[in-house]
């Protein structure tokens, strides 16, 4: 079909959009490799690498043992030596095991070599709560945003998954690309023109006049649902999908907030030193005081218990309430 601009698109799930992006980049550049647990003939834990092993073979699509630290390290080393590996880490919680090569080596390599070496490695991982408990549910992207030299992206649509993954595989330095478990069942139209989505460009998902909601990943859908409900109350929400957390597109956020005059940040991770805390601080630094609120997980681990999980992570009801409270002040 055609999108609103008349561009041909195809309906794809996230896993298909990722596979398409990776495949195209592997065809385009022989230095692109895929490494991770179950990425070979199994096609990836979420089938996001379906068909790549058959097409490109075991040298370029490599199953790894359960060794997140060495896998990211080997990816970073191969990147420094001229390749472009994509290392997949099944759950974002396990990314912690690879922080040393990612943060101490890859993110600092360009700086410490005075530009002599870079580590163009992409670490793809999957965040978010979906019944899997305290060590398989976390959204720790805010931890990564404070690392100089590291880029962090988190798509909320298959089109963005495709475009951001392609950009990531061509980027100069390490990129953490974050999928979300609850987005996998959601299909979307993906442009067939092979468009890359530059990092540092947010997307306005819904225009509004009373309050700006900034968010990313699966929470974009939650924000849109809340905005829909609030419209019934006569509250007009602008929803900004950050897409890229490092670098952040402050220009789009500032432009919106300057117009609406109020800001709510929404994330699935912790609000303490969270993505929202950073967005609010930068907005206030730029345009001065304004009404703001932040919504995120409650300060507790995310249990696999369905009642406790639902109580911990944000939903549209909590977001709508936060918006109403803010505007009623």
């Amino acid at each position, binding site marked *: 079909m055609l999108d609103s601009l008349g561009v041909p698109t195809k309906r794809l799930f996230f896993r298909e959009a990722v596979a398409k992006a990776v495949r195209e980049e592997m065809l385009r550049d022989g230095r692109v*490799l895929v490494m991770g647990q179950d990425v070979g003939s199994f096609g990836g834990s979420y089938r996001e690498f379906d068909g790549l092993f058959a097409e490109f073979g075991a*040298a370029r699509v490599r199953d790894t043992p359960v060794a997140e*630290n060495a896998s990211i*390290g080997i*990816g970073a080393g191969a990147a420094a030596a001229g390749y472009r590996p994509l290392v997949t880490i099944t759950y974002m919680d396990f990314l912690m095991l690879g922080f040393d090569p990612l943060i101490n*080596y890859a993110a600092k390599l360009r700086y410490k070599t005075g530009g002599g*070496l870079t580590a163009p490695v992409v670490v793809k991982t999957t965040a978010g709560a979906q019944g899997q408990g305290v060590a398989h549910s976390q959204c720790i992207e805010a931890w990564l945003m404070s690392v*100089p*030299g590291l880029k962090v992206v988190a798509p909320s649509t298959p089109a963005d998954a495709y475009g951001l993954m392609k950009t990531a595989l061509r980027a100069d330095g390490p990129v953490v690309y974050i999928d979300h478990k609850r987005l996998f069942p959601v299909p979307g139209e993906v442009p067939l023109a092979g468009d890359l989505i530059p990092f540092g460009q947010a997307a306005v998902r819904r225009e509004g006049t009373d309050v700006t909601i900034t968010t990313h990943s699966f929470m974009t859908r939650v924000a849109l649902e809340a905005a829909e409900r609030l419209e019934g109350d006569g509250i007009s929400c602008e929803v900004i999908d950050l897409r890229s957390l490092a670098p952040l597109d402050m220009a789009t956020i500032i432009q919106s907030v300057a117009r609406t005059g109020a800001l709510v940040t929404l994330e699935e991770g912790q609000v303490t030193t969270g993505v929202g805390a950073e967005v609010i601080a930068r907005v206030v630094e730029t345009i001065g005081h304004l009404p703001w609120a932040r919504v995120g997980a409650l300060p507790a681990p995310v249990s696999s218990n369905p009642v406790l999980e639902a109580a911990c992570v944000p939903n549209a009801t909590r977001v709508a309430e936060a918006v109403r409270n803010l505007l009623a002040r």
Partner: protein
Amino acid sequence: MKPNSFTMLRAMTRIRAFETALAARPDHGFQLLSSGEEAVAVGLSSALNAGDQLLTGGRSIGPVIARGADPRRVMAELLGKTDGMNGGRAGRGHLSDPGSGFFGAHAVVGGNISIAAGVALAKQLDNDGSIVAVLFGDGACGSGALHETLNMAAIWKLPLLFVCNNNQWSVSTARQDALAPRRLSDIGATFGLPACTIDGLDVEGVAATIGEAADKIRQGHGPAFVECTSIRLRSHSTTARETRKRQELAELLTHCPIRRQIARLGLDEDTVEMLDREAAEFAAEALAFAEASPYPSAAGVLTDVG
């Protein structure tokens, strides 16, 4: 006298003089010296070809000089000067000079081991016959990164040589109090690697053993592990307290790999004096170069971040 024997002695003498001159400067900063461990760096480097790459932990000064990097630029780097090989940003912990076959130091203990395996993977894919060596201390043998990497290097038959420079100390903790294996090379053997423990104070022995291991790796036999038992003649770093007694240190000095090579070659006093003088000049020239080089401008603090 084998032609290599004297060259290797000279290389060791130069490293000792270089580090001594560096440490004597009040502004030397924080350095990890390798006095007592020169035979490992020199023996290992003698087994590597121009296209090979060496990666090390933070105790990098001996290895980078042995590999043939410009000593003047090494000294400038160690002192934070712009003419250092990394513009003075990397320092001892992170020196990098891939053009000389020294891919880089990385000062997280054990942190460079998986990186080296990644460089070896790139070499395997390039299929150009070159290999990678990674040099780490006994301290790294307790780190999970080594064990994970050994496993993956073995499975993938990477052209990677694991060289453990066992100087027998992790800062103040003795090797036997920190590591369970009887020999550290047993760690490599567990993963099916050809593995051995050798005298790391015997430069010719190190060169011979590592040369054989490197040849096999070049022939496509996959990774190997060599443990070189050495001594640390100085404290952990130039700012760390020495925990050993004077008598113990004096006894250690009698095992100095440089003295040993001099004795093996039966050199007379004049020759030794000539060697020392030449090494002191080598160090002095590097220092003069570093001194003449400016510190980087603070305005550059944000360049090449990402």
